[in-house]
Structure formats: structure tokens, C-alpha cells
């Protein structure tokens, strides 16, 4: 018995070594090369859908979905996967703060973010669209976006304090519960016991226009559609892209920002 145990342990170790420390393959040159590689994305994001399209029939074998971007990028750095399909801005933040990463030149898709609502909640959609149009028109939305890009992609990301955001506490019109996934800087991020981010400040402005108190519910991204359809939250503001699939289960506001999906890879693994 012991002999068997010892034999199989040693066999296992060798097999593990052979698998885990296999040599690196040829370098990635373009997005086309990704079609046969191990990819990762955050669960429920458009990055996942794009990766599925890229991989085609191999998606069950080659695609790993993670709960958080930090996990996906850690897997990338540990060579468990070869690319993370994700939104450009959060990817740029990783590029700034973590060594040894690169973004592929080609853009995988261009898209727009919008606020998501429960299907048929037309009253709130219209009210939010009106408020959104107002903050777009008076330039305050652009100001917010500029401020965050500066803070997160330039230097000195500590310049934004959650205390400065007015959540309109004690408003007469009740509460506006917004669901988000606070691991998506510069759009939303949890700092201490409160939140910062483009989406958060935008929602704060909208809440003010609607005379409601802003309440943030921080959840996993793939739980958000469920939360809005069961009325747990009034709306989703989490850098969510409008897709035809999502439109079937959700109503969307007007777009508020344009975004891109890109492939984040290891710098040493990428040859232009």
C-alpha cells in the first residue's frame, strides 16, 4: 500500500512539474493569435462574450471566467492564461500600477456604457434620461470623467476623497438604490466604507436632480441583472455595456460614455 502511495506521489509530482513549468510558446502578435489561447474575462461582462466569440468551439476548454479583475490579472501574471479580455480604462489602470503588462494595439470592440433598469420601469428610465441629458448639457459629466481619468491614469490617484461626493442624505423623495461592482476603477471603487468613481459621482448628480438619496449596493457583477430584475436595486450603474442580449431582460438609459474592449497580455509575451 505504502509502495503504491509513494509511487503515485512521485509520478504525480513529475507530471505536475511537466505541466506547470512547460516552456512558453511562440509570442502573441495580433488578436488573431488569441483564438487558440487560454483567455480569461470577468464573469458576465462583455469581455466574456467577446472571448467566447473569439474562441468559438474551444471556449469550454480555453476560457476561464473570474469573479474579479484582480484575480484574472493575477492568473495572467502567473502564466495560467495568456490574455484577459476587458474594458480599456480599468486595463490602463492595471498597466499603470502593475509591472510587466501590455495592451494589444487592436481594439476588440467599441461600445457604450449605459444605466440598466428593470424591464418596464419606464417612469424611472425617463426621469434618469432627463437628468442625464441635463448633466451632459451643462458639462458636469465631462468634468467628472476628466477628473477621474486624470486621477487614475495620470499620477496622484489619492486626490479624490469619498467625503467630497454628496449622496444627498435625507432627501425627501426617498432613496435611489444603485447596484454596482466596486472593483472597476475609474468607474467605481470602494474606498474605506464609501465609494468613488465616475459612475458614483454621476449617480449622485442624478439622485440630486430626482431629489432622492443615493444608496450604493456593492455586488458581484454577474449578480447585478438578477438584483435589478427582482427590484433589489433601482438601477445598475457599473460600466455596463448595452448589448442586444441584455436588452431582452433589461431596459437601458441613454449612453453616457464610450468604451473599448481590449486584450491585456504580458509585455514579454507580446510582439507587435
Amino acid at each position, binding site marked *: 500500500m*505504502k*509502495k503504491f*502511495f*509513494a509511487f503515485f*506521489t*512521485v509520478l504525480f*509530482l513529475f507530471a505536475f512539474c511537466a505541466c506547470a*513549468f512547460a516552456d512558453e510558446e511562440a509570442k502573441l502578435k495580433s488578436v488573431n493569435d488569441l483564438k487558440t489561447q487560454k483567455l480569461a474575462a470577468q464573469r458576465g461582462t462583455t469581455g466574456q462574450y467577446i472571448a467566447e466569440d473569439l474562441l468559438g468551439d474551444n471556449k469550454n476548454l480555453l476560457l476561464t471566467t473570474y469573479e*474579479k*479583475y*484582480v*484575480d484574472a*490579472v*493575477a492568473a495572467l501574471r*502567473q502564466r495560467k492564461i495568456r490574455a484577459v479580455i476587458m474594458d480599456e480604462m480599468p486595463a490602463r*489602470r*492595471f498597466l499603470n*500600477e*502593475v509591472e510587466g503588462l501590455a495592451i494589444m494595439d487592436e481594439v476588440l470592440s467599441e461600445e457604450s456604457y449605459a444605466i440598466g433598469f428593470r424591464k418596464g420601469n419606464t417612469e424611472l428610465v425617463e426621469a434618469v434620461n432627463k437628468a442625464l441629458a441635463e448633466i451632459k448639457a451643462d458639462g458636469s459629466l465631462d468634468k467628472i470623467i476628466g477628473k477621474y481619468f486624470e486621477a487614475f491614469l495620470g499620477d496622484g490617484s*489619492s486626490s479624490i476623497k469619498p467625503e467630497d461626493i454628496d449622496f444627498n442624505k435625507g432627501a425627501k423623495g426617498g*432613496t435611489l*438604490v444603485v*447596484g454596482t461592482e*466596486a*472593483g*472597476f*476603477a475609474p468607474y467605481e*471603487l*470602494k*474606498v*474605506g*466604507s464609501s465609494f468613488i468613481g465616475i459612475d458614483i459621482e454621476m449617480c449622485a448628480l442624478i439622485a440630486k436632480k430626482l431629489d432622492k438619496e443615493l444608496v450604493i*449596493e*456593492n*455586488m*458581484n457583477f454577474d*449578480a447585478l441583472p*438578477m*438584483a435589478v430584475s*427582482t*427590484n*433589489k436595486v433601482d438601477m445598475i450603474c457599473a460600466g455596463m455595456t448595452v448589448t442586444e442580449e441584455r436588452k431582452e431582460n433589461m431596459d437601458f438609459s441613454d449612453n453616457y460614455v464610450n468604451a473599448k474592449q481590449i486584450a491585456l497580455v504580458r509585455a514579454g509575451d507580446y510582439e507587435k
Partner: protein
Amino acid sequence: MRNNFFNKHDACLTSRQGAGRGDIVLGLFGLFLLYLLYSSGFFTAAAWQDFNRRFYQNFIKDQRYMMLVDGLKATLFMTSGATLIGLTVGLILSVIRVAYKGGAKIPLLNKLANTYITVLRGTPAMVQLLIWNFTIFASARNLNTQYIAILAFGLNSGAYVAEIFRGGIESIDPGQMEASRSLGLSYGDSMRFVVLPQALRNVIPMLFNEFIAMLKETSVAGYIGIDDLTRAGQNIQALTLEHSQPLIMVAIIYLVIVLFLTHVVRKLEEWLSRGRR
């Protein structure tokens, strides 16, 4: 179990001359782990160079440790709340089942208790948590999510506690019950004054183990938007983009609490078994 393991191991280390084959395998495995750490750059100077800087980034700067403290508060709050519900529900269920076995005419209640235990033990706590939050309490908007989690974990643990109690009661010799009945005590009285006190002594270690398991179980509460200890670590990860340090810190905090609770159980066991030797 634990004692057995150590005894076996001790015997293996002392009774043989030199190292046995098992020890060689263990040693190989240890070497292999060291090699893994080595190959992932664990022992290089670069890995430790900025350890302090990253530690400061993760936990000290802007009082980020407060995120962990708040998370710990939520974890402990949920665990203690769920413990209370679990104990109550478990006690009621086990009394129903034992009373039915003892001849009480409550077939319907017994059936209900059985179904409850089967369903709640047969499904994962996390699935139950999601169902509680998104299906049963779908329209509860202004209810603190932590209360939903307490309910979910408490009812889940109630099913396990019921089985622990029932096992404890059944471990008491039926002669005890017969003796007290023959002395003129009613069924309820002999349960209360004779059987239950002895059963409790037997089940307390197992109960504590159940609650230690629950403390760790609450780590899935992040799924319904509760910033518990695990989630607090993930929030720090998102803030600093650092992967390992927050996770390891969270693990250490859980471990310290569990070690403390284990210590309490051991003391309790000693106290309960005094005069029994």
C-alpha cells in the same frame, strides 16, 4: 480523530529505527513545495524588497485596515446572529424528532422536521443564501442584507444542530429515561432534568465545531452584497491591485479567530469532563 492522528504519527516517528518510507515521501513533498516557492521567485530579494511598501499600501495608507475591521465586524455579527437562530431552530427540531420517537403523537410535525433537515442539509449554504436574498426576500428593499444572511445561515445551521442534538440525546442510555420514568417523573420532566443535561455535555464540542464551520461559511456573503471579511480583502485588492497580501491577511485573521474558538472548546471540554475520569 485528532488525537488518533497524532498518536499514530508519534508511533511512526519513535518506534522505527531511522526514517520510514512515509517520511521519505513526506520529505520529498516538502522539498517539492520549497521548489515551487523557489521557482515562483519567493526567495529572491526582489520579492521582499518592497514588502514593506506594499504592506503600507494595502493596510496602513488611508487607514485601509479599517476596511478589514469593518468586514470582521460584519462577519462576527452574522456568525453570532446565525448561531442564536441555529441553536433555537436546532433545539426545536430535535425535540420534535426525539419526542416522536418517544411516542408523542405528532406525525405531521415530525414529517415537517424531517423534510426541513433533508432539504437544508442537502443543498449548499451559498445556494440557499442566494435564494433567500433574490427569491424569497426579493421585494424586501429596506431590510439590511445582513439580516437576510443571518436568517439564511441560521436556518441552515439549525438543520445541522438538530442532528447534533438528536445524536447527543440518543447517545444517552435509554435506561436513564426508564429509571426516571419509574421514579414518577413525567416524560417532559425526565427529558429536561435527566437526559438533556447529560446530552448537552456530549454535544457542546460538536456544537462549537459547527459554529466554527459557520464562521468560515459566512465568507460567501459577498455574493449578496455584504462587505464581510473576505469581501473586505477583495475590496482592498481592487483598490491596490495587489493580489496576495490582502488574501493572506484575511486568512490569518480567520485563522486567529478559529484558533481562539478552538482553545475555548478545549477548555470547555476539560471543564465539562472534570470528575468524570
